[in-house]
């Protein structure tokens, strides 16, 4: 592991943290490629190590958001606890279901959510501009 790899991994880490704070995601979408492509981890190790890296990021991000007044602690607790159960079920189901078919279905669902979010953004933007104008 050379200095170049260390710096690149750190830089991708910073980018992952920024997108985590901006969008409310864990940052695994950037952690996993940094761990496999730059630091040379295998896929399973990279996914698992990414989960570890997410913990301090999400924790610090949550505390900052709490001080900004954006965090709904109880809602986050309900969602977080149930999602642990959901994840256990998901891992079990991944071994028995036709995952490729599901993957394509889920990708389409995500594109549909993207379309709806885009419309929501446009509506918010119109409301904001109308508010600013008059």
């Amino acid at each position, binding site marked *: 592991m050379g200095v170049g790899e260390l710096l690149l991994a750190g830089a991708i880490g*910073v980018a992952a943290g*920024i997108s985590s704070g901006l969008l409310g995601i864990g940052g695994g979408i950037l952690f996993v490629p940094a761990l496999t492509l730059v630091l040379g981890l295998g896929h399973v*190790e990279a996914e698992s190590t990414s989960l570890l*890296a997410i913990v301090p*990021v*999400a924790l610090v991000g949550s505390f900052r958001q709490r001080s900004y007044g954006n965090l709904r602690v109880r809602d986050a607790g*309900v969602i977080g606890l149930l999602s642990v159960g959901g994840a256990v079920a998901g891992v079990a*189901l991944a071994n028995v279901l036709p995952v490729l078919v599901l993957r394509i279905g889920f990708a389409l669902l995500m594109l549909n959510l993207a379309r709806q*979010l885009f419309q929501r953004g*446009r509506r918010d933007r119109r409301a904001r501009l109308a508010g600013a104008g008059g």
Partner: protein
Amino acid sequence: MDEALERLSRERLLRLAAIGSAGGLFSGLFGVGGGTVMVPLLLLWMGYEARAAAATSLGAITLTAAFAAATQGLYGNVDLLAGGLVGLPAVGGVLIGTWLQQRVHSDTIAFAFAALLAVAAVQLVVR
């Protein structure tokens, strides 16, 4: 009136439970982050404002990731050094990201998230 309020809060609780289960299920099935599912659902289904959706998603992720990382750690799949190399700079990044988030319009956050979802959808099929 009380009954209506109670029904409302029960419905809210059910929706939160559904969002949490869906986020966990999809991340277990496909390896996508729970945030990509939870943030849009909080925004579109619970009527959350964009900043509150992102903040609450991060809170939930803290719990899920801690549990999942501990489980994977028991299997010996976690590389502490590599995790620190990407994770510690990312803690600095999240301070910048949350600071920045308070200074952009919420429609910008919605647009950025729509773009992220489109990328994640493509990545899910082409890998």
